[in-house]
């Protein structure tokens, strides 16, 4: 009874927030509703006994994906009012495509026949009472499905290489840390004993001696030479 009530509560909030994701005028609100939808979906997984999936949903989707969305939405200057301008014009076509998809789904569902054991299997994500959800997943993921698991790892590696290849470049004018230079620096860095409790008012701000008296001329020349 309580489980059923909880199910309907979470499901109702999930659907309502999903609708709000699409209809909210403010994109930041959309993303916040998306996070609410993820949380409710995670709760539904918990009710079904799949606590590992529930935790993954919260950690990965809420923790990483949705926050990333939020950053992108806040940082990009997108005029959403202009994006919505075409809505009236494209609505009929969208409705037609949606209708066709709906008919196809009906066609599929009408031909569906459930196996006799399907009802029992539906809510038993655990193989036995003594094995936890995550352990059960791990057992098949690292044995029967190890090939696919490793392949997925390779795909992620390719994604990483691709992102680096396409975006990382050496730009002129960027400043990089050169540890050898830092270590070799002497004279300009000194330890001084300062009276305890004197504070900045009494001592003033101490700056390192400016070493720019001579070098600028040299670097300027070198710079010039590099251009020609």
């Amino acid at each position, binding site marked *: 009874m309580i489980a059923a009530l909880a199910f309907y509560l979470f499901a109702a909030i999930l659907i309502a927030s999903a609708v709000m994701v699409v209809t909210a005028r403010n994109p930041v609100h959309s993303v916040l509703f998306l996070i609410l939808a993820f949380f409710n979906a995670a709760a539904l997984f918990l009710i079904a006994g799949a606590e590992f999936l529930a935790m993954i949903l919260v950690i990965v989707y809420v923790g990483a994906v949705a926050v990333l969305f939020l950053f992108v939405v806040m940082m990009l200057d997108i005029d959403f009012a202009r994006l919505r301008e075409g809505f009236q014009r494209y609505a009929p076509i969208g409705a037609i495509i949606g209708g066709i998809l709906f008919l196809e789904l009906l066609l599929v569902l009408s031909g569906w026949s459930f196996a006799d054991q399907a009802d029992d299997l539906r809510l038993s994500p655990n193989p036995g009472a003594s094995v936890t959800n995550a352990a059960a997943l791990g057992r098949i993921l690292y044995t029967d499905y190890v090939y696919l698991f490793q*392949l997925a790892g390779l*795909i992620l590696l390719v994604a990483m290489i691709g992102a680096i290849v*396409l975006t990382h470049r050496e730009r002129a004018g960027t400043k990089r840390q050169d540890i050898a230079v830092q270590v070799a620096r002497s004279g300009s860095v000194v330890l001084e004993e300062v009276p305890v409790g004197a504070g900045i008012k009494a001592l003033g701000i101490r700056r390192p001696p400016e070493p720019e008296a001579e070098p600028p001329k040299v670097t300027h020349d070198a710079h010039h030479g590099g251009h020609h």
Partner: protein
Amino acid sequence: MTWTLALPELVLAIAGLVILVAGVLPKQETFFPVSMACIGSLLLAAVLVLGQPEGTALGGHYVADDFSGFMKLLAIGGAAIGILLSLDYNTKEGLGRFEFPLLMLLATIGMMVMISANDLLSLYLGLELLSLPLYVIAAFNRDSARSAEAGLKYFVLGALASGLLLYGSSLVYGFAGTTNFDRLADAFSADSGVTAGVVVGIVFVIAGLAFKVSAVPFHMWTPDVYEGAPTPVTAFFAAAPKVAAIALLARVLVGPFGDLAGQWQQVITLVSLGSMTLGGFAAIGQRNIKRLMAYSSIGHVGYALMGLAVANDVGLRGLLVYMAIYVAMNLGTFAVLIAMRRKGRAVEQVEDLAGLGRTDLGTAVWMAVFMFSMAGIPPLAGFFGKLYVFLAAVQAGFWTLAVVGVLTSVVSAYYYLRIVKVMFFDAPAGALDPAPASLTVVMAASGLFTLFFVLWPAPLLAAAQAAAAALLG
């Protein structure tokens, strides 16, 4: 668990990881040594494929048989020559970064996984492992707007195709209760009558794979991507991934859905007819030779699929022979296109070839051989490729396919022969730069294969026959 069966993939994956570390550590650019190491590991994988026993392994996700051996050798060969073709071009265009051959190597692992897939899951993961590196290398010349456009377009449409494939797979899984090909074949062999949902699922799976082989009506990305991507990347696209995708299409349709042939034969027939027609007519007006080759490859896929539409051992043998010959002459043609440079700048218009017969006879002769072969003129290899698929179609009574195939190959002969005419009879537009040695070697090798296939076709035919028999079980 007999994981040793997947030794070629394992060795190639480990070699890829080692090469990645070895390539990234040194301070200077390691493009050339990494390319050589990649070609070496591909050759090693090819040797391992040759010595591979038959069977299924890794929880039924992996299968090795004569068919997978044939297709893998073809894919590995295409990939190795693809890396070889990129050596000179990439150095001259400033694309000589070590990730390039490495991504090709990783894509080759994806192809081998696809070819050996015995499960809808390994099919999908193999396809993604193939596609992801391809998106990246299509956009590899990131300072060129065209290359970036090619990569983005390919990525967006490729993601859509993956979605279609996954949707189809989920429908098939929903109705059969399994993703394993052997058990799917059992589920669909029972004469319980096929439901509409399964057919919808199969059509979605075919749509996803037809995108990868750029068959009509999922070909729209091909001309733009082929034109925008750097030329060695286009050469790679047109050879090895097509082999893998065709192999996958054949294995999925003939294996698990073999008893539903009546359902998917019409789809493949329509796709084949459309591809042949579009390939024949759309290439006529093209001025850019890479775009022309894109439409040409759409047409060739149409001819190859004719063998699959017939769906018997003769048809499959025709398909396999066609793919082998197609890869060989395609790599040769692209070796010529990559060599097209004038005063150090790459050129890619048909007019740029004008008078090549007078300025660089060797290259012009090889190009003429490839063009005649693609047009299907005897006694060159391309003629035999077409002969075996047409023969299968006629024997099985697929008259429409055979007639349309002959007519469209006559139409396509126009634009292939126009290139020959431009090369030998038009006034020279200024000499092209001499072709570097690596490209000349590829041209000569595939040119000799194309010329002399007629003398010694038996080994290829026998291998294709054994592969087709293995697929039909």
